[in-house]
């Protein structure tokens, strides 16, 4: 009788074994460590950006621990960061943050990558009253709800492309028309809106303004339409994959403009490697550049050049702005904790709200919504295969090569 039911019993045993709750991980929080939780994509669409963010966080952590730790009210703490993979899924990000707080008893939350995941995470920390600083979700929509526990160290999305327009307006051959095209997602839409409004306010005519699906594999139609509109400036709010498609498309269809600008792409080494010399002359809005000349407060590397050098020594590549803004995310906590003199979430939140400190990355200061509107953005340009900072004039290490020559003359 029994053996007839064997398969069924076997299956039940299997399910039982699998359904056993995962063994609780050893509690990290001892008395001498400040623990942060970070849900970052290790798989899925944003896996690459997840790695860049993690490098930025880890770089800060190792520096702080190597230099003794953080002093809080007479006691010195080491820092640790607990990571988990959110699979590029906001649903998972929210669940992981619940886990960090409920089960791992982390002290604070470092933000995930991307605007949608940051929005999910913001709801969770708001409810549980644990402060979160994020450096990788710049859509202002996240902050439209009056959240009190979420802070973003980066300049808002709408600022990304303003610098490129400003730069062009300071040149001899002034642009008169602009085409703006963006991916249809929270971040990219705000980038494009910001650029259109800025352009219109400065007397430029927006001759093309459109969105394409964020997962597109072919933008040749957009390229053709932009060509027909014949703009002086071509600006894109989007992500690396579509920036690559567009730049290739502009060459394939012989689309010439005085400047090509992208919100995401030119900064990453992948962009230059993939396009080779076709990446030259391209502008990119950037949150930070290694040539930034801010003199930071004590406690962490104070100088961008040193940050870039140390970072490259450790990870084998020059840091891009994702790395830097992620380190800055941690620094916001560092200074706020010191200022609060306590690890109490409420006190640290209040300290974050009134934070005003200069770092190598720029100023860290939040408006009433929790956005760092005080930090300006910079503009990079790829010149002969190298990334140069060309705007604003105060931080530039090269003059902009403007206007961009026609494809036939390169």
């Amino acid at each position, binding site marked *: 009788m029994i053996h007839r039911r064997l*398969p069924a019993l076997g299956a039940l045993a299997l399910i039982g074994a699998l359904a056993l709750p995962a063994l609780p991980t050893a509690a990290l929080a001892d008395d001498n460590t400040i623990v942060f939780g970070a849900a970052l994509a290790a798989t899925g669409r944003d896996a690459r950006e997840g790695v860049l963010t993690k490098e930025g966080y880890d770089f800060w952590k190792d520096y702080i621990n190597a230099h003794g730790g953080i002093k809080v009210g007479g006691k010195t703490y080491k820092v640790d960061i607990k990571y988990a993979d959110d699979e590029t899924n906001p649903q998972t990000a*929210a669940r992981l943050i619940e886990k960090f707080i409920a089960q791992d008893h982390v002290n604070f939350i470092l933000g995930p990558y991307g605007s949608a995941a940051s929005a999910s995470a*913001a709801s969770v920390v708001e409810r549980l009253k644990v402060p979160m600083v994020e450096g990788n979700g710049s859509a202002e929509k996240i902050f439209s709800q009056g959240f009190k526990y979420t802070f973003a160290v980066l300049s808002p999305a709408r600022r990304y492309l303003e610098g490129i327009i400003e730069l062009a307006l300071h040149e001899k051959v002034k642009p008169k028309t602009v085409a703006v095209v963006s991916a249809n997602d929270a971040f990219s839409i705000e980038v494009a809106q910001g650029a259109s409004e800025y352009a219109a306010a400065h007397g430029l005519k927006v001759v093309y303004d459109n969105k394409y699906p964020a997962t597109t594999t072919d933008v040749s139609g957009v390229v053709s339409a932009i060509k027909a509109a014949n703009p002086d400036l071509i600006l894109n709010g989007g992500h690396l994959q579509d920036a690559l498609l567009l730049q290739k498309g502009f060459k394939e269809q012989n689309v010439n403009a005085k400047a090509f600008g992208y919100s995401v792409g030119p900064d990453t080494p992948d962009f230059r490697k993939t396009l080779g010399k076709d990446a030259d002359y391209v502008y990119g809005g950037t949150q930070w550049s290694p040539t930034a000349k801010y003199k930071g407060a004590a406690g962490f590397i104070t100088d961008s050049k040193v940050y870039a050098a140390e970072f490259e020594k450790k990870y084998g590549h020059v840091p891009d702005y994702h790395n830097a803004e992620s380190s800055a995310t941690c620094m916001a906590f560092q200074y706020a904790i010191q200022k609060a003199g306590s690890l109490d979430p409420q006190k640290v939140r209040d300290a974050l709200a009134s934070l005003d400190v200069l770092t190598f990355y720029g100023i860290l200061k939040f408006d009433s919504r929790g956005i760092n509107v005080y930090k300006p953005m910079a503009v990079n340009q790829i010149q002969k295969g190298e990334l140069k900072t060309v705007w604003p004039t105060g931080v530039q290490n090269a003059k902009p090569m403007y206007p961009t020559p026609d494809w036939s003359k390169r």
Partner: protein
Amino acid sequence: MASTSTVKVLQKVGMGGITGNRYAIYVSCAVLAVLLVVPSLHNGYIENLMRGVLMFATLSLGWNLIGGYTGYVSFGNVVFFGVGATTSAVLWQHFQQQNILLAIVVAAFVAALMALVLGFPILRLKGHYFGIATLGIALATQEIIANIDWLGGGSVTSIRQVDFFSSYYYAMWAICALSLGATWFIARSKFGYALVAIRENEEAAAILGVDATKYKVFAWMISAMMAAAAGAVFAGANGSIDSPTAFAVDNNVFPIVMAILGGVGTVAGPLVGAFVLTAINETLWSRFPEIHTLFFGAVIVIVVLFLPRGILWLFAVRGGFRGFVNSLKAYRV
């Protein structure tokens, strides 16, 4: 509804509705009852995880009604989840309504209406073509919603959460319990027999007096309401929604995977599948943080090879281990 005599004929020719293993249903009910205490543990993670299980179980139950019982395999049921989530967002953004019950009712109504309108042309399609049509509807709807700013567009829309957060958990629990109960009730009713008759042989069923179109559309409407209700609650619980999250591929594929894993066309199969798959995923995730998705894929492959028709199917296998092996051989070439 098919007449009583029709049902008797159907049962006689072996086309009666099935509920699957009785004990599995009892166990499912017991598990559901236990899940009611989760919020009192005051552990946000477990509550979130279990809310996810309940959500996926509901989606899977919804899919099972049309894909499992009726045999119309939908590859796009996520569209109703997405529409439900969008409804929640619109209710808050434009009407300042954060009431969960209202969101559920409106979402279910919108989804049912959509299934009704689309059902008549689409459910005429057979087999694969129905599947592709539903996939097309899901993708097109997502893109259309992403292009209408009033519905949230491509951006993230926030939803103000209710003060008592566990409300979302209880709401999801209720929807899941209701879906399970509805499935059980349908599977034993004339309606259920008619659905299975359509699955086994639509022409024969029609000859026996089953109004196939009416039943199919009705089944799809119920299926749509389950998914939409889950979507409405999810959006509120998440606090914000954007179209890639509302129409996520995971929300489309996982419910199908769960139903298959548990047992297609059984009452408890989707629930069993949702629990087992989530348990596998969470275990792998915590033990192998770097490569859990890879292992997850491997586990699915192995499970399919040894349980091609789902876990509940094991209870139907006779003849012990040898019977089990023999049944596997039937699927080889």
